[in-house]
């Protein structure tokens, strides 16, 4: 693909002192500019590890990760730093991902000042105000600390922190699984809108196929550290080729009376 932003080829990740606990067994993926890729799997599928490997938060034991044409597999921390601005992450638990001792202002302006994206403190403040309004929060939120906000508001701050640096790629790791249904839809549409507005490439990790379908262009189903199936959402959901995908879809209880579903 011509406009591929991020790609991984044959990546393996192993943990443990002797690198003997393999979590990923050779996974390939590509994400184009402006595209949203869903990564779905159950616990132990390696989806979280895959996401963190893409951001170079865990070291890969084998394979390569390429970002915007650059091989970043073995880049050191200092060499990664300028790229960090362009690759951001939104976390599952907005409580533990926001430092309880920082105000929302500090959380948003710190990164801008670090990367020289703001000329001075006032400019950083102005940009933070803009982004906080964009994610639908009142300006006074800037003075709050994370524990003074509700779960949905915190997740909006988490999103604001990721987009304030105008990244090219965002990893969203189970970002709505801790939220109530009514808040979930708001956060999902916010991520969708921002993705389109900013032309973001998004890797959207979730265990929930319904959520994936609502927001992603393509989907990749992981099972035990391998790809079970991969393709455009339309074809994977309408005509799944893998038995595992079919089993996953069939296990989702839908809010319709479906007599006999439980016994199937």
């Amino acid at each position, binding site marked *: 693909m011509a406009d591929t932003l991020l790609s991984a080829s044959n990546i393996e990740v192993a943990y443990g002192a002797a690198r003997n606990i393999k979590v990923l067994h050779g996974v390939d993926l590509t994400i184009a500019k402006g595209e949203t890729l869903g990564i779905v799997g159950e616990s132990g599928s390696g989806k979280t590890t895959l996401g963190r490997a893409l*951001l170079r*938060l865990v070291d890969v034991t084998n394979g390569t990760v390429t970002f915007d044409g650059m091989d970043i597999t073995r880049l050191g*921390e200092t060499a*990664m*730093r*300028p790229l*960090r*601005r362009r*690759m*951001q*992450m939104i*976390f*599952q*638990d907005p409580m*533990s*991902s*926001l*430092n*309880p*001792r*920082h*105000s929302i202002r500090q959380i948003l302006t*710190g*990164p801008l000042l*670090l*990367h020289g994206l703001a000329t001075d403190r006032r400019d950083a*403040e102005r940009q933070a*105000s803009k982004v906080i309004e964009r994610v639908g929060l009142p*300006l*006074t939120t*800037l*003075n709050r*600390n994370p*524990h003074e906000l509700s779960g949905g508001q915190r997740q909006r701050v988490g999103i604001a*922190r990721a987009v304030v*640096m105008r990244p090219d790629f965002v990893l969203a790791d189970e970002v709505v699984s801790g939220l109530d249904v009514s808040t979930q839809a708001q956060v999902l549409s916010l991520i969708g809108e921002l993705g389109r507005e900013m032309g973001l490439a998004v890797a959207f990790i979730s265990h929930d196929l319904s959520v994936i379908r609502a927001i992603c262009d393509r989907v990749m189903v992981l099972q035990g550290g391998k790809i079970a199936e991969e393709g455009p959402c339309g074809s994977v959901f309408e005509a799944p080729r893998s038995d595992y995908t079919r089993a996953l879809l069939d296990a989702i209880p839908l809010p319709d009376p479906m007599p006999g579903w439980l016994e199937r």
Partner: protein
Amino acid sequence: MADAVIIQTAARRRRFANLFANPKVLFGGGFILLLVLLAFFAPWIAPKDPLEQDLMLGTLPPAGFPGAEPGYYLGTDDLGRDVLSRLVYGSRVALTVAFVAASLAALVGAMLGLLAGWYGGWVDAVVSRLVDIWMAFPPVLLSILLVAILGSGVHSVIAAIVIIDWTRFCRVVRAETMTQASMDYVTAARTIGFSRFTILMREILPNVAPVLIALVSLEMGIAVIVEAILSFVGLSVASDIPTWGGMIAQGRQIIHHGWWVLTFPLLMLFATVLAFNQLGDGLRRVIDPVMRR
């Protein structure tokens, strides 16, 4: 934007007010503050010279008891020295040791703990082994030995406390650092591109601080006791400087006809340690913004 600034300072003021709304901080901190004032203004507060002996006025009981002399509110010891004045001057040594020893032990211990907990690997291995070895020495014996080698004096007492108690800080801070390091906001800071050292200072240290502050306050109480013990066995400061431990040692010998010489410094010691402990506990609760503990 002006609104925002006003709200910000209001929040800060509110937090400051919270600090004193906590009864533990109020009473513990109040008592310590009083003690600091007492130590600082001792020459003006103490009614008598703490060293002035007058054998004619030996072992006078406190005011209100039969045989008491006016002006000697808490009585005198067997050498005729005013107990109240000695108590007031004794707080100087106690507080000096408490503040200096606890701060230095915290500084050394916390620094090593932060490094070990954050950088891990060989740094952690070295620090952890050092702590293990250190803790294998019996502390009381070690302190007596140290003071015996270093010679008596306030400096030696402080050095002994720091050398023995830095491990206490190191262990707690290391564990707390590791907990914080596993939190998502640390990962978030990495994705933003902060350097490891910046993350340690900006993200981790503020979250370790509440535990550290509580521990420092507890350590001050411990330091007061250790100083008293060393004074009691005659290994602290020169005998011409009044200390609570020294007074207790002296009072022990005349307990049958002069109970007050022992009782008042003991009460003082008890109240001071209690105040430090309460202050530490209260501070931890107030400072922690999440109150999650």
